[in-house]
């Protein structure tokens, strides 16, 4: 009797459990609840900002509310550490669930198969909302391997007072390379009469990787690589655009502060903010970091000067995407966190440079603020001087070295172009 009763109880339990599981499955059509912890790896330049801390907390709280039983965690490192570490993590196979990824690394990581195909998982129509130029950074062979998270571009900031002092029209900032050079020269002045130059017209960034001034090259029809129809990559540096750019970089040297090694991006920004630099090409974080700047009467901004008066606009743009490792242990949960991070509610909040990478962010407060009007216009023509390819790291180094050598007269422009052509050929044929 006992045995039968026991058996009956067991069978009853089994029936009860399966009924509840089945029952819920069938009646509500829900997928099983997600559990585990999803991690988001970003940079501490953002997580460390006081104003953004509540938003990061809100991200985690909202995620937990949406997915009871699951948790989320935000990890971060300074940019300098992050940029090396995230590669190592992918290579080792233990990258966090959602990763901030530098757009320059996208081709390499996508090609090597380290990233999950998001178009496949989120549906390709999810990506229709992004500005095509931005989406291009995160596309590889027709698939989307990361979602465009941030976008930035550069504009020309200038100082109207210094323009006046230099005898230039403060409402006519330079619109071409020739004008930029001429204005830089005029703006390099001795304003205190002590025989020493006090203000400069141009600034290079540390350490002579002319990262921000690359915008000038982007404001030309030039592109340093050509991909032919067979997919072969060839150098394209023996062009009037690149040569003209090298000459411009070279000629700007006397009008730039000489101690570039210790004057980093922030140092140059400070020079501009303190009225010692007539023109500064940079991104709008200069406004975030210097709150009083936009109200200064001498503050002016303009589009990046083009190579020629009727040439195309352009600006150096970059950005980060968010992606998931292909071998992620909890892909479903990771995708949920990614979607939350990409939601308009959070996308604009967790970084210092809300991206108009899509129309519904273009109506954000940031986009509507008139101080960003020039930048909004510049977004349309944002690109990188070397199009995305698998050797971007090495090519960037080669290009920046070439520019540095020309600036320092270590090599003539003709020789530099020949050398770079050879180097690029060697690099792209190395695989």
């Amino acid at each position: 009797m006992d045995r039968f009763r026991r058996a009956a109880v067991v069978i009853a339990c089994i029936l009860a459990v399966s009924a509840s599981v089945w029952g819920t499955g069938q009646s509500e059509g829900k997928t099983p609840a997600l559990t585990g912890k999803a991690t988001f790896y970003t940079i501490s330049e953002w997580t460390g900002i006081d104003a953004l801390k509540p938003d990061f907390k809100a991200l985690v709280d909202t995620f937990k509310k949406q997915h009871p039983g699951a948790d989320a965690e935000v990890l971060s490192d300074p940019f300098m550490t992050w940029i090396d570490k995230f590669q190592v993590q992918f290579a080792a196979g233990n990258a966090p669930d959602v990763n901030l990824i530098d757009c320059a690394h996208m081709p390499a990581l996508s090609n090597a198969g380290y990233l999950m195909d998001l178009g496949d998982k989120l549906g390709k129509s999810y990506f229709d909302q992004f500005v095509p130029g931005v989406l291009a950074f995160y596309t590889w062979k027709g698939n989307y391997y990361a979602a465009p998270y941030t976008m930035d571009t550069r504009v020309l900031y200038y100082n109207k007072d210094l323009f006046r002092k230099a005898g230039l029209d403060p409402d006519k900032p330079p619109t071409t390379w020739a004008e930029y050079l001429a204005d830089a020269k005029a703006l390099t002045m001795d304003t205190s009469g002590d025989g020493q130059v006090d203000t400069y017209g141009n600034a290079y960034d540390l350490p002579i990787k002319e990262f921000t001034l690359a915008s000038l090259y982007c404001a030309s029809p030039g592109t340093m690589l050509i991909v032919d129809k067979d997919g072969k990559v060839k150098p394209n540096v023996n062009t009037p655009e690149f040569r003209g750019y090298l000459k411009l970089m070279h000629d700007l040297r006397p009008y730039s502060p000489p101690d570039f090694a210790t004057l980093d991006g922030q140092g140059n920004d400070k020079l501009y903010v303190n009225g010692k630099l007539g023109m500064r090409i940079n991104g709008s974080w200069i406004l975030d970091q210097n709150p009083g700047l936009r109200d200064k009467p001498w503050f002016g901004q303009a589009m990046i000067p083009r190579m020629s008066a009727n040439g195309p606009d352009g600006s150096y743009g970059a950005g980060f995407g968010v992606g998931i490792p292909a071998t992620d242990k909890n892909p479903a949960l990771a995708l949920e966190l990614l979607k939350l991070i990409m939601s308009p509610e959070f996308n604009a909040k967790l970084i210092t440079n809300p991206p108009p990478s899509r129309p519904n962010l273009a109506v954000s407060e940031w986009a509507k603020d008139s101080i960003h009007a020039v930048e909004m216009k510049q977004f349309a023509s944002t690109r990188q001087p070397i199009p995305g390819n698998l050797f971007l790291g090495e090519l960037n180094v080669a290009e920046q070295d070439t520019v540095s050598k020309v600036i320092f007269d270590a090599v003539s422009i003709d020789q530099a172009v020949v050398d770079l052509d050879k180097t690029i050929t060697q690099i792209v044929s190395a695989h």
Partner: protein
Amino acid sequence: MHTDGRTLVGRALALVAVLVTLAVIVFPFYWTFVTSIKEPADVFRSPPIFFPIPPTLESYGAVLRASPIPRYLLNTTIVAGSTVALVLTVSLMAAYGVSRHVFRGRIPFLLSLLAAQVMPVTTLIIPLYMFWSALNAVDGYGALIGTYTAISVPVGTWLLVGFVSALPRQIDEAAAIDGASTPVILTRIVAPLVSPGLLATGLSVFIYVWQELMISMTFVRTDRLKPLMAGVSTFITSRGIEWGPLTAAGVLAMAPILVVYMFFRRALIKGLTSGAVKG
């Protein structure tokens, strides 16, 4: 103290050399401290401000708001302390083995201690990261302690060999005759006698781990396990260096070590100079 054929001029020159050296050494400390109590806008004021009046704790505030410094301090203390304990144990054993016994492989082992120091950190990082992540040990004290111990044992052993060799053999031989086992000899007799060496080695390892940046930043991901140096490096940002908070973080990071150093400096100097590596 030596009295040799020094002239007055010679003495004066020596004094100048010492004073100039002291100035060059102490001034950066002073400047670090002073920069940490200046208003951020004053860091590069021209002419430079030598005595910020009034001083401000703004940079320190920024540091404490930006990162959980007390937590970092705990992490570094645990990792450094554990590493020291392990290194001293392993190194003393090895040093004793090398200096008291002649065995096959003795010389290759000694040479391997030297060879082990040749590897630069940049070469070690990726293979070790792969190793630890294969063991799922990344983001834990274990990976850091293991790595730091392995890096410090060669130097530690090398230093301690000098100290142990200086002890007359009769001492431990007498103890062995009395029936003491090797572990007892090591802990009760040898260790106390080479305590200057242990102190010097231990302190060197402690300072190394305390300051180490690359390995700890690469191996650790979550905030609650990061070391003190992480708090410092946060202020080297992609846009530039935040001098005020960075020097403040530097002062906070150095302070504990300075205190330890103050306490032990006599013993440390004595230890390092008394029986040290004489070649």
